[in-house]
């Protein structure tokens, strides 16, 4: 049995709002093994990005904080780590890329300066060595003609190229974990295919574990080995990707899969019916209540769902689910 690289236990992240303190992440646990690719899936407002920011120590200052639980990275609890320690972990151990490659690069520095800055800060390279390494990295993320492109400013690049630069920055110090927060949502589908292809290749080469945050089940199926479906700050379901897609046990997972029209191998004249998930994600005020937070949108709701939070089932066939009426396990 291999030890997990990252082990999150009973994580609770609280956000201070005008209406009081709300647990945006509520008793959330998961493991990430070395070299593995997992995915957090769910609608916006389900806590996917919050979990990532919590791990990175980047929760909005004064508003969000880790209230309890532990984030264990190779024996060190990141929830207790000092700001200084977190600064050296970010980039070196864990890196993150974001949804908007337009806004996450600094418009007034060339991309070479931005890549080299990471190398100088984290690895203590000289200006010259960092510049040479930056060109290598640009080449590794398949930017054509890296020697000349390195002096370009972000506005001179397309969306896909900017996201490649972000990947180059994130992978500059060969981190053990890369968190990709909706990395292709703002990009066209052919560019998305290029980025996925690149991430898969880099993962094979460097052995970096990936946490992919997305709402697209297709992307999950393409990129990840295991998925964690999140709803309102809690885990709804977890398991191997294809197994969960073929045999989803939580009504929310089922909804997420069948609410989008998918392209199958052969298209027939028959059109699949899209299952609607009525309503929307509950407001923060309801987070943390002792009930199933999905109950108001569920087709199979009972009295128990409204009065008690469903516990996570045991690890059956490496799939686990938090539902009082879990089917098919």
């Amino acid at each position, binding site marked *: 049995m291999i030890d997990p690289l990252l082990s999150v236990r009973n994580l609770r992240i609280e956000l201070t709002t005008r209406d009081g303190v709300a647990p945006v992440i509520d008793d959330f646990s998961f493991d990430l093994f070395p070299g593995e690719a997992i995915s957090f899936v769910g*609608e*916006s407002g389900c806590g996917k990005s919050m979990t990532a920011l919590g791990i990175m120590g980047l929760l909005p200052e004064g508003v969000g904080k880790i209230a309890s639980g532990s984030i264990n990275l190779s024996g060190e609890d990141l929830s207790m780590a000092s700001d200084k320690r977190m600064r050296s972990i970010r980039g070196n151990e864990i890196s993150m890329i974001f949804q908007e490659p337009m806004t996450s690069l600094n418009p007034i520095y060339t991309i070479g300066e931005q890549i080299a800055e990471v190398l100088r800060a984290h690895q203590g390279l000289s200006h010259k060595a960092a510049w040479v390494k930056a060109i290598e990295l640009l080449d590794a993320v398949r930017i*054509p003609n890296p020697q000349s492109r390195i002096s370009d400013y972000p506005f001179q690049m*397309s969306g*896909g*190229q900017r996201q490649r630069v972000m990947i180059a920055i994130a992978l500059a110090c060969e981190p053990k974990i890369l968190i990709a927060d909706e990395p292709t949502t703002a990009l*066209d*589908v*052919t*560019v*998305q*295919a*290029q980025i*996925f*292809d690149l991430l898969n290749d880099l993962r094979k080469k460097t052995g970096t574990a990936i946490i992919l945050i997305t*709402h*697209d*089940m*297709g*992307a*999950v*199926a*393409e*990129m990840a080995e295991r998925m964690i479906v999140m709803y309102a700050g809690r885990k709804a379901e977890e398991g191997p990707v*294809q197994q969960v*897609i073929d045999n989803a046990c939580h009504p929310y997972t089922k*909804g*997420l*899969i069948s*609410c*989008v*029209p*998918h*392209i*199958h*191998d*052969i*298209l*027939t*004249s028959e*059109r*699949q019916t*899209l*299952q*609607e*998930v*009525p309503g*929307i*994600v509950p407001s923060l005020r309801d987070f943390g209540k002792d009930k199933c937070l999905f109950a108001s949108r569920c087709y199979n709701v009972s009295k128990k769902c409204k009065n008690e939070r469903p516990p996570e089932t045991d690890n059956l066939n490496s799939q686990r689910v938090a539902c009082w009426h879990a089917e098919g396990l």
Partner: protein
Amino acid sequence: MPDQLLKVENLGVRFPLKNRSIFGKKTYLYAVDNISFEINRGETLAIVGESGSGKTTAALAAARLVNAYTGKVTLENINLLEIQKEALRQARTKIQFIFQDPYSSLNPRLRAEEIVKEPLNSLTNFSASKKQTLVNELFKAVGLRPEQQRLFPHQFSGGQRQRIGVARALATQPDLIICDEPVSALDVAVQAQILNLLRKLQEEFGLTYLFISHDLGVVQHMCDQIAVMYMGKIVEYADRLSLFNSPLHPYTSALLSAIPSIDKTRRENTKRILIPGDPPDPINPPIGCRFANRCPVATEICNQKEPELIEIKIGHKVACHLVEKNAESPLANIE
């Protein structure tokens, strides 16, 4: 014989560029370059393409929301590009728009009922009571409760706002509704609500849709005919089954193969055709085929001569020299 509702012929839209050439000649960016399509009553045509391909501009031009510099748009025997004033106002009741972003497309200072009434106020001479009756019916048709009429947009969720947008588009009882990425801004679980609603309304009222989207999954679900655009041109035009099951243009094949799928069989059977790089600069488009520099099978002629959109099989048009020659996908024999 299907009843043709809209016919667009050789439509072109260009935007003047600031920097003139040294001889003071005006230069243009051709956003939509000589495209033609038609839609039968009760059917749905999708225009798909990536950002910058001109799909939205083409739809806007067809509805005369941007000016076309050339071409003909015929709706029920009237050329929309020629009419003026009252005739245009009449024609506008027949084409309505559903926009992508339900946040910015609704006036935040108007109540929901006033938003839905807007097109009735400006395009019809209905009495106040008739307008109110219509609004009541529209709210019911799109699945909103009567008491929600008095609310402002910010009091609705994204999906509900898009329902208001749909109600507004239906208000003048149009023949054609142009849906410009109607679900792209919505959360996944909410998309199904709007797509199902659009399908239901189409059946109920016999609506015709021009559907603009980059999401081929959604397109496959909603459409009968599909036009694929690349850099202002239609490169492939076919019915739903032909396009998805036997695409001919290399760009269409690449586009289809790029979609991540939850279907294991599809993932195993589909070889991903990665197209390198980005589309060329639209200000100076290449002389030959616009896709040639990214095409995995481009030959000499592709860089020299622009291919025309030709009917290769019945109802299946493609603009590609290589398809023209062999009447099959040029990628068919490549490993």
